[in-house]
């Protein structure tokens, strides 16, 4: 009997064979693997440069089998702009958290998208600052307790969570903007497809692409991994709807003024 065993699911070659520092159940790992799988599928690993800014995922420069650059907090889209403009033949992606992208780096992401830089932004939204120990982020949910919103986020003082995907889709520059999640396996499958489309738009030199991905932070949310996934389902998804917000050939979604 010939041995016709085939591997169906295994370690993507674009992911380095190391143990990550991420907490048990943190879905950063899932997103890392899917990005690596997409890079493998598109066959672009050898001409990819990733940008890992400050945050839990700064150590991503140790986790991808590609040339990487570590960027200062919030500036990954600018660093990526520099790389892409210097070497347009490279596939450039940034891997940013919500504190990095939606707080200190808000200006950089908006202008990078508005200039239409042909880079791919992987935006991991876990509603908290992870690496620094669980502070309130721009995407922290109303009432969510963090180390800097001990009584729960008070929207009268800290405002409402920022919806980045919706914000970017009001820009008229063509782009691919979508939001996915990885708290359920089938959501992860759809998110991988979003990532595949995003990177494909870049490989085809078409437009800027960003995929916002709802992710968990069991440690700083104080929830076991599975309950953290449930929390994403019950609390985050209703506020951060999943799907594709903008495609390069679609019209912009800026709200119309009314009198």
């Amino acid at each position: 009997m010939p041995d016709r065993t085939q591997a169906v699911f295994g370690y993507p070659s674009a992911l380095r064979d190391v143990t990550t520092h991420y907490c048990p159940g943190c879905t950063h790992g899932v997103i890392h693997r899917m990005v690596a799988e997409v890079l493998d599928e598109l066959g672009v690993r050898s001409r990819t440069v990733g940008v890992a800014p400050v945050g839990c995922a700064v150590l991503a420069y140790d986790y991808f089998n590609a040339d990487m650059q570590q960027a200062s907090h919030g500036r990954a889209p600018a660093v990526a702009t520099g790389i892409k403009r210097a070497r347009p033949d490279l596939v450039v992606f940034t891997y940013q958290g919500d504190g990095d992208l939606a707080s200190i780096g808000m200006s950089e992401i908006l202008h990078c998208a508005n200039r239409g830089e042909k880079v791919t932004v992987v935006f991991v939204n876990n509603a908290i600052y992870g690496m620094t120990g669980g502070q309130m982020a721009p995407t922290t949910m109303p009432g969510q307790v963090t180390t800097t919103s001990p009584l729960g986020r008070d929207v009268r003082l800290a405002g409402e969570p920022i919806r980045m995907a919706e914000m970017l889709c009001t820009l008229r520059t063509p782009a691919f903007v979508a939001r996915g999640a990885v708290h359920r396996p089938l959501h992860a499958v759809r998110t991988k497809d979003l990532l595949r489309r995003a990177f494909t738009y870049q490989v085809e030199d078409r437009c800027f692409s960003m995929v916002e991905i709802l992710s968990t932070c069991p440690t700083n949310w104080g929830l076991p991994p599975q309950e953290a996934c449930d929390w994403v389902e019950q609390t985050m998804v209703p506020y951060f709807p999943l799907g594709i917000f903008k495609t390069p050939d679609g019209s912009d979604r800026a709200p119309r003024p009314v009198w």
Partner: protein
Amino acid sequence: MPRIVIERDRCKGCELCVKACPQQILGMTKELNSKGYFFAFVAEQKRCIGCRVCCITCPDVAISMCVNGTMIHYFRY
């Protein structure tokens, strides 16, 4: 016949795969791996339907799958 392999020392004991498996054939061991976590293991390999949900769920790529013969997936990953 699909077969999944869980690398004991990659697992961080988060139990996401155990809860995600539609066949509920995964369990947590009582012994510790080299990282000091109780790790997941395959309780009933024969009932595995090869849906890859555990592989997709695992944040540490600790679960790999191979198949002997044809395999039909009902979703593209």
